């Protein structure tokens, strides 16, 4: 099974600053998808951004962008102009492109992001 590693249990950022959350993964597959999910205190899982492995271009969604390094198996999330509402647990997740996996997600252990005024 593919493993996803988030090496930063906690991160802190000041409002309006930029923060980068790290994620590495282990796979022998060439085609797959990577995701970042946000989980605020409400417990709801919210999709932040998605990256297809076959795409060279890094995905962006407003203030959120990724740095996808396929050879290094690295998938970091950059949050620009951080806001108080960004405070949450962030999970990196891997999804195989193979239907045999049921398209299930493999999650990392998460990074807790604190945003200070």
């Amino acid at each position: 099974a593919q493993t996803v590693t988030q090496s930063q249990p906690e991160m802190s950022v000041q409002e309006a600053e930029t923060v980068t959350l790290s994620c590495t993964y282990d796979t022998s597959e060439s085609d797959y998808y990577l995701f970042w999910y946000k989980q605020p205190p409400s417990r709801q899982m919210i999709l932040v951004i998605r990256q297809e492995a076959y795409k060279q271009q890094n995905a962006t969604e407003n203030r959120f962008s990724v740095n996808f390094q396929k050879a290094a198996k690295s998938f970091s999330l950059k949050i620009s102009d951080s806001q108080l509402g960004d405070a949450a647990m962030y999970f990196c997740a891997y999804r195989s492109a193979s239907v045999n996996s049921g398209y299930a997600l493999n999650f990392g252990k998460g990074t807790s992001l604190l945003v200070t005024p």
Partner: protein
Amino acid sequence: NAGVTQTPKFRILKIGQSMTLQCAQDMNHNYMYWYRQDPGMGLKLIYYSVGAGITDKGEVPNGYNVSRSTTEDFPLRLELAAPSQTSVYFCASSYHGLEAFFGQGTRLTVV
């Protein structure tokens, strides 16, 4: 739009009791999943289903059972609850894995 609905939101069980966690989606998604989230451990896959009548085990299936008689519903059954099953349970659905939509979770405590 309801999306993925889980019931109950909270439950306390005694050791050895049984219960069913309900999950329903109204998006006509073919894929459905059950995950559990333990503190500091991320989410782990319990069971999944690729369509009505088809289910398969995930990473941590022991102590659980599922069924999928309709496209909309995917209940998770706990038999003989144990303290190790204390966790937050999430149901999710997707259309061919394009994007997973999650329910709001069920916090289960076994005492």
